[in-house]
């Protein structure tokens, strides 16, 4: 696949036109010769890997950064933005990935914050603001109640409030930065319905994402960014997700498939009857079983979960996020107390062990949120190597930290796991997400673990790092590692797992054979629709 652009003719007049945009940071070119033409009334997707330069481009378009070269045209006339206020005045609105709402204010207060309508000079004119919010909400089918407290709203509703906020300020062109990252599948569908209404009413949407299926579902046009420059503009009707991914990466795609089985009959992890009550439910009887708790009307985060993982086996847990996966992982790691059930590792009952003892006993852990749980961002890489292994060789000798040993082993991880870094003394925060994750994988694989708990091991990492992490998981599995894999990426789950279980509202509701299941079937099992089909 070359760099040749597959361009579709666009008949309508462009709402946004970028020509030759280049942005340099000291030592780095973040954007280079970007050309982008967004038709009015279209949902235009901009796709690219993490670090490809999407965010920089959007910051330029929103006036947060100024391009070194190039031209921005809005509705045909050249503009120059110095601040976001200029961009807003030109009708551009930005919905950030992380919501910027004050929880303790109402929707109305959040929307007008910073552009309060005045009445008689000083007083805020809530009446007219409420009326305007209702009008916008009705016109675009957003269904937002201006008097609801933001803290009572779900993620999908909050996002609609964010959209309403920019519409309230008169935006005609909306930039949505990874809007689906925080949403569950049905919320994504709702968002897409909202977006379709918005464009039908004449708005233009720039949709930034690296989730290709979603892009193909919703976009009218797609532009691919790679290494800071636009490499192709494609028509979503004429391109497959695979093709699009290859354009993003610039090479053939890796695949998560592992087919020849390495499963043995030696049990590594056995979980039986694991039950965890919602701590919000108040105190519950100690040692009460799942049935007793259920009968008492206690909401269970984990409901009587049992499974085994053998040496050399990857067990995948599929499920919509928030159905107990995080609690399951934390229960097995000993980070959260359980109400009933046992966990045993290689025949030893570890239910009462501390997290440290479990780690020492041979559990490696790739946490879901690497920034919160996996790294000390402002500590050098070699100190991060010690994290979680602070009682073991080669990091310590007795009560002393063995600096030389830890540094040497960090160097080994950097080389073996291809962590791209100028050295082991830089802070973890300075590395890209993919390289941070490779460091974590390397660390958790060291010390020959018997069990690896991998929670979203390739989330938010680029395709190259993803392939490398998959390779390491496959190799370790072949060498006899048992893996508990939790992922939202269904292809990853199906491709890597030897067996698959579906979790729904804290219960294992289905066993699925990864050799025969399709992502669609798995997806419907995850929402509870296919409980009996599996």
């Amino acid at each position, binding site marked *: 696949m070359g760099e040749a652009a597959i361009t579709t003719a666009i008949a309508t007049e462009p709402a946004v036109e970028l020509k030759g945009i280049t942005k340099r*940071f*000291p*030592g*780095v*070119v*973040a954007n*280079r010769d970007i050309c982008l033409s967004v038709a009015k009334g279209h949902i235009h997707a901009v796709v690219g*890997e*993490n*670090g*490809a*330069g999407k*965010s*920089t481009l959007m*910051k330029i378009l929103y006036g947060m*950064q100024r391009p070194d070269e190039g031209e921005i045209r809005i509705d045909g006339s050249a503009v120059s933005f110095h601040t976001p206020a200029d961009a807003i005045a030109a009708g551009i609105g930005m919905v950030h990935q992380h919501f910027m709402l004050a929880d303790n204010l109402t929707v109305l207060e959040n929307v007008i914050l910073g552009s309060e309508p005045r009445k008689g000079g000083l007083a805020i004119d809530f009446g007219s603001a409420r009326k305007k919010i209702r009008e916008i909400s009705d016109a675009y089918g957003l269904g937002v109640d201006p008097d609801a407290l933001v803290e009572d709203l779900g993620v999908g509703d909050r996002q609609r409030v964010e959209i309403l906020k920019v519409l309230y300020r008169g935006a005609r062109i909306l930039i949505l930065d990874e809007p689906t990252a925080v949403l569950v599948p049905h919320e994504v569908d709702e968002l897409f319905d909202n977006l379709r209404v918005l464009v039908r009413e004449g708005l233009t949407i720039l949709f930034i994402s690296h989730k290709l299926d979603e892009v193909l579902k919703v976009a009218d046009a797609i532009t691919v960014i*790679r*290494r*800071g420059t636009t490499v192709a503009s494609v028509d979503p009707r004429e391109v497959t997700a695979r093709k699009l991914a290859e354009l993003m990466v610039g090479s053939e795609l890796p695949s998560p498939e592992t087919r020849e089985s390495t499963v043995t009959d030696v049990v590594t992890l056995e979980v039986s009857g694991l039950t965890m009550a919602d701590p919000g439910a108040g105190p519950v009887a100690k040692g009460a079983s799942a049935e007793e708790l259920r009968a008492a009307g206690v909401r269970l985060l984990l409901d009587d979960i049992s499974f085994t993982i053998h040496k050399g086996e990857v067990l995948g847990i599929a499920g919509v996020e928030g159905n107990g996966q995080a609690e399951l992982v934390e229960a097995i*790691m000993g*980070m959260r107390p359980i109400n009933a059930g046992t966990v045993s590792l290689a025949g030893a009952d570890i239910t009462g062990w*501390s*997290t*440290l*003892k*479990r*780690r*020492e006993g041979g559990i490696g*852990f790739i*946490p879901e*949120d690497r920034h*919160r*749980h*996996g*790294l*000390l*961002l*402002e*500590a050098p890489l070699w*100190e991060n190597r*010690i*994290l*979680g*292994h*602070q*009682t073991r060789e080669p990091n*310590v000798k007795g*009560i*002393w*930290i063995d*600096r030389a040993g830890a540094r040497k082993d960090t160097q080994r991880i950097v080389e073996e796991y291809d962590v*791209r*870094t*100028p050295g082991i003394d*830089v*802070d973890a*925060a*300075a*590395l*890209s997400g993919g390289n941070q994750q490779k460091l974590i994988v390397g660390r958790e694989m060291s010390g020959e673990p018997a069990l690896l708990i991998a929670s979203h091991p390739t989330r938010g990492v680029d395709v190259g790092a993803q392939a490398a992490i998959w390779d390491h998981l496959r190799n370790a599995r072949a060498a006899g590692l048992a893996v508990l894999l939790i992922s939202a990426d269904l292809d990853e789950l199906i491709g890597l797992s030897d067996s698959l279980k579906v979790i729904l509202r804290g219960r294992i509701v289905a066993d699925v054979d990864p050799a025969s299941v399709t992502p669609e079937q798995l997806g419907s099992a995850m929402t509870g629709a296919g409980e009996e089909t599996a």
Partner: protein
Amino acid sequence: MSGFMERLTGRVKLDGVFAVVAPVLAVVFAGLVTSVVLLIAGNSPVDAFTTLIDQGSTPRIIVLILNTAAAYFLSAVAVAIGFRMNLFNIGVDGQYRLAALLAAAVGGAGLLPGVLNSLLVVLVAVLVGALWASIAGLLKVTRGVSEVISTIMLNAIATGLTGWLLTADRLGVLNGNAIGTKPIPEDAHAPGWALIPGTPMEVNSFLVVAIVVGIGYAVLLNRTRFGFGLRATGRSEPAAVASGVNVKRMVISAMAVSGAVAGLVGMPELLGGSYQYSLNFPAGLGFTGIAIALLGRNNAVGMAIGALLWAFLDSSSNALQILHISKELVDIMKGVIVLSVIIAYELVHRYRIVAAQHRVSRELAAPAGTEGAAA
């Protein structure tokens, strides 16, 4: 990314030249602000600073500076142990005062002869400090009480408790109108050496204790497993939990160690100066320690320099009155130093983060040409 509080309390490190440049700039800036204040008040800044330095370099004041700095430094180390793991031990003040009172009472009783008695005094002080600080740790772990609130309240309680204990029918002994604990026998006084020529005043042996504590602090924090767990908890509690650090135990041990060092703060005065706890016993050293820990960014050497600077300003400020300048001028100076050092560290920190990210992407991009970058 780290929050402002993390950087304020120095859990985010600065390396190389930055660590030196920021405080030096802050001190220079504070000098400028003080000069402006002096000019407004109609005094000559040159005269004032010359007087301060002249006074500060007399042998007698040098000894005073060294002895005062020892207590300041111990207080700063006590605060810094908490800072390194995200605990704001504001209670050093109450911890050392209560510790000094009880230790003075035990010492005054003369249970043991000679040097054994002084060791007993120190031991009691360390234990009392550790126990008093552990209350805040326990409250935090079991009840989720912020240690900021509990240590402030424990300070007030310590004040009340020392006042109650220091009465004639309890630990106090009336001597004329003054009340204090029974003086510690002379054979248990801390030794001192007339090191500085030109004055018979002795440099107290607690200077050595302070140096040893400083070295121990650096080694404990940077070279041991305990220190690693403590720093990891300070940098990211969720990451520490996921790594198997027992955060609750760590909170209690850190508070206890912090309190133990706090217990030493009153010792240079008790065993090297007053030999009894009376109403004149210096108060407020715990707060001085917070300022010096901030100034020195929890670094042992940095805090030593900070303690010397503070002791210099305090010890030589009296001389300003010769020029009819209020000696409270040095308080203005100390305040401005702390404020500007915080601002300077923050600016340097922001610069350093951006510089590090650019450096990494530059070094990685160099072989691959213009590889993408996340902004």
